[in-house]
């Protein structure tokens, strides 16, 4: 038994992504059509008839494959709807890649969509099965805010320094998002504004939280050997890892809220698949799940980008800034894009696609080799985690 991966067997040859934001004038059907059109336009060699099968990621904007086949008027093709919390979009990609790698199909599409702004509610609303009413009803910011005091307590970081670290993460992601025409928020935000924003939960202010937005994104996936039929600059899948944990943190006194155990395992698996031994130097850039600022801090350690307990120093030293050694969320992250669940994973992949092809404009990094995307869904102590690694060259 082993996690073998499908390194270099599958390529991404086209992508599309709508702007993320409050699309009061567009339905999820519209967002699907928009992303789909852009994807095909980016891949002149492909038509809708070339696409053999589809994977649709959405958490709450529809059920079943009909959510995709109906707006696109697909002619009797297999469409699989997947859901895996905040990793939903990435899960669509993962399953679509496996379908190509298996030989079952030549060309498939993964598309993620989420329409959050039609509910009229603040924040996320996750549908739950009928229950006994005893599950703790913590809002997402509340449950992630548990990370900050726990991290301070374990590593001896004082509250003021932690505030600086969280502010730097939010500041950095907004600086990056200001260079991105697809972002929900395309403005830099002063550190003072971030630091003094109204408290939402624990030490988290409003600027420590990602936004709420609508959006859709998609990717066209083929066998690596067919990639150049579609584009001169495909990107290749090096690793796809997915982990669901036992979710026993909420009842396990040894869990201390300073790590996502699932992410650590998931990253190890992905590095193994891609043959990476030193992620700090081998990974050129990463899109990580910065749902809240302390999440990004903890992820730096869980993904192996910082030594345990040292992540806060690396953040303050600018290591993860756009001009740092290892740029994190060069596109602006969830912080600038909001988090339309089904679309987020594909939006992250889009940034790798742009950067590896040299199409990232003002955000363009110098000669990146490998990009990493990471999602987590759930909460500290019980989550699902996804890591992918992609590169511009085979081998």
């Amino acid at each position, binding site marked *: 038994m082993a996690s073998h991966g499908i390194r270099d067997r599958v390529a991404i040859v086209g992508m599309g992504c709508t702007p993320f934001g409050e699309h009061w004038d567009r339905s999820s059907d519209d967002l699907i059509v928009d992303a789909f059109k852009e994807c095909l336009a980016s891949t002149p060699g492909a038509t809708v008839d070339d696409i053999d099968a589809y994977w649709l990621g959405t958490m709450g904007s529809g059920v079943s494959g009909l959510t995709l086949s109906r707006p696109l008027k697909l002619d009797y093709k297999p469409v699989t709807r997947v859901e895996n919390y905040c990793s939903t979009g990435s899960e669509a990609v993962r399953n679509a890649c496996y379908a190509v790698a298996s030989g079952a199909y030549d060309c498939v599409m993964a598309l993620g969509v989420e329409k959050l702004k039609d*509910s*009229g*509610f*603040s*924040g996320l*609303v996750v549908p*739950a099965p*009928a*229950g*006994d*009413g*005893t599950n*703790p*009803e*913590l*809002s997402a*910011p*509340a*449950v992630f*805010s*548990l990370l900050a*005091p*726990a991290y301070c*307590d374990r590593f001896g970081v004082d509250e003021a320094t932690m505030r600086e670290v969280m502010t730097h993460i939010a500041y950095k992601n907004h600086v990056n998002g200001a260079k991105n025409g697809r972002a929900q928020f395309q403005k830099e935000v002063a550190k003072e504004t971030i630091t003094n924003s109204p*408290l*939402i*939960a*624990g030490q988290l202010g409003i600027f420590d939280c990602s936004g709420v937005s609508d959006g859709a994104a998609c990717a066209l996936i083929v066998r690596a050997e067919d990639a150049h039929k579609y584009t001169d600059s495909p990107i290749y899948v090096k690793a796809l890892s997915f982990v669901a944990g*036992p979710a*026993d943190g*909420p*009842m*396990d*006194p040894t*869990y*201390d*809220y300073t790590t996502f155990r699932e992410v650590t395992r998931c990253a190890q698996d992905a590095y193994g698949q891609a043959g990476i031994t030193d992620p700090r130097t081998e990974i050129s850039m990463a899109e990580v799940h910065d749902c809240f600022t302390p999440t990004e801090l903890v992820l730096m350690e869980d993904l192996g980008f910082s030594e345990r307990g040292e992540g806060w120093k690396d953040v303050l030293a600018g290591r993860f800034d756009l001009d740092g050694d290892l740029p994190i969320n060069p596109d602006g992250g969830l912080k600038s894009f909001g988090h339309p669940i089904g679309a987020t994973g594909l939006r992250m992949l889009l940034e790798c696609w742009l950067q590896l092809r040299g199409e990232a404009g003002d955000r363009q990094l110098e000669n990146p080799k490998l990009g990493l995307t990471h999602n987590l869904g759930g909460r500290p102590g019980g989550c699902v985690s996804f890591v992918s690694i992609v590169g511009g060259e085979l081998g």
Partner: protein
Amino acid sequence: MPSPRAAIVGYGTYVPRGRLSRSDVAAVLGSGTLKGSRSVASYDEDTTTMGVEAARRALAGTTPEPNLYFATTAPAYTDKTNASAIHAALNLPHEAFAVDLAGSVRGTVGALRAGSASGGLVVLADMRTGLPGSGDERDGGDGAAAFVFGEPSAAVAEIIGEASATSEFLDRWRAPGTSTSALWEERFGAEIYGPMVKDVAARCLVAAGVEQADHVVVSSPHLRTARSAARRLGGTTSVERHPGVGYTGAADPGLLLAAALDEAEPGQTILLVVAADGCDAILLRCTDRAAAARAEEPALRDIPYGTYLTWRGMLEREPPRRPEPDRPAGPPSARSQEWKFGLVGSRCTACSHVHMPAQRVCSNCRTVDEMEPVRLAEQLGTVATFTVDRLAFSLSPPVINIVLDLDGGGRLICQATDADPADVAIGTRMEMTFRRLYTAHGVHNYFWKARVAHSGTEPKDEV
């Protein structure tokens, strides 16, 4: 009295921490100057949860007959037994009988009579709510008391006399479905109650062959009657006994009796007089067994009048832009009855790991189906970490969520209640309390929260 009758072997009281200042009410309503305060059940309390709190204190160290009698004028449900929720929260045996005596204050005497006849647990709880500016709002209070009736050999006090009188007259009433009562002119009730109390108290003492009781306590929803009867009989009412609490309805006789039991010397007698749609007197004699030490009551919390009105549904406030909570579903709640109501988790018999709620697969050693139930409601715990949630909906924002590690194993994420954010820190000692999380579509979501424990509850060193 024949001796086989059950005697009081344990008792406990619970008065919520909240206090409403009458001057605050007067200032808002522009109704002159008023002094003192009344007790206020929190937004997450009702007569059922307060009854559970009093019963937990009364039950400490006793194993009563499996009968539970619950009296209140403010039942959380009608057409559904509330005593069964109390029974479940106390984790009492399946074979038990549990019944409500709900509707009027006289149900309290019924519960005491039933308890003394059959043995068992008597739970008395009430919330006195009146329209803004009413006497019930001003003079009422919220609270609970509980008595355990058992073997006379273990008695703290025995019942040695009883007398009653009944009369049909219109003093106060409440139509089903409404939350406040209407009252007739006070002087009319005084006219009826006065002679009746005199008659019943005298008959009770004569029947027991006692000339004068050592302690006399008088309870009545007709406050003028209680006052004048106490004066005539040489006794006290809740106004003197429990300043700052108020008249607590069905719980009031219980709180008065408990206070008298606290103070009475061995061999002394206590006359309890309850005037409610009639009159009942109960005469008790204390034994030489030491009365239970009263639990130390924690610091009180001032509840602003606007908050109080909101909690009682008399002031509708702008809701948050969040979905309404779902009602707890019947089948899952029944399946998890021991957990939801009794806070019973499971302990792995292979590795001793404690799970909250019960699991089938051990999260520590992965052994399957080797679990035993473990009641955790009486365990104290320590805050491992916490957060203040300003987004979550609450009638008492902000919500304080804690990660609580219980002494002896078990971790739970739950709300801290009766607390301000400044009261909770990593390391704070907490105790469990049975509460109503919210009500959705008429279904009360009962579950456990934690509150700051009294001092002197530091964890014992492990040996």
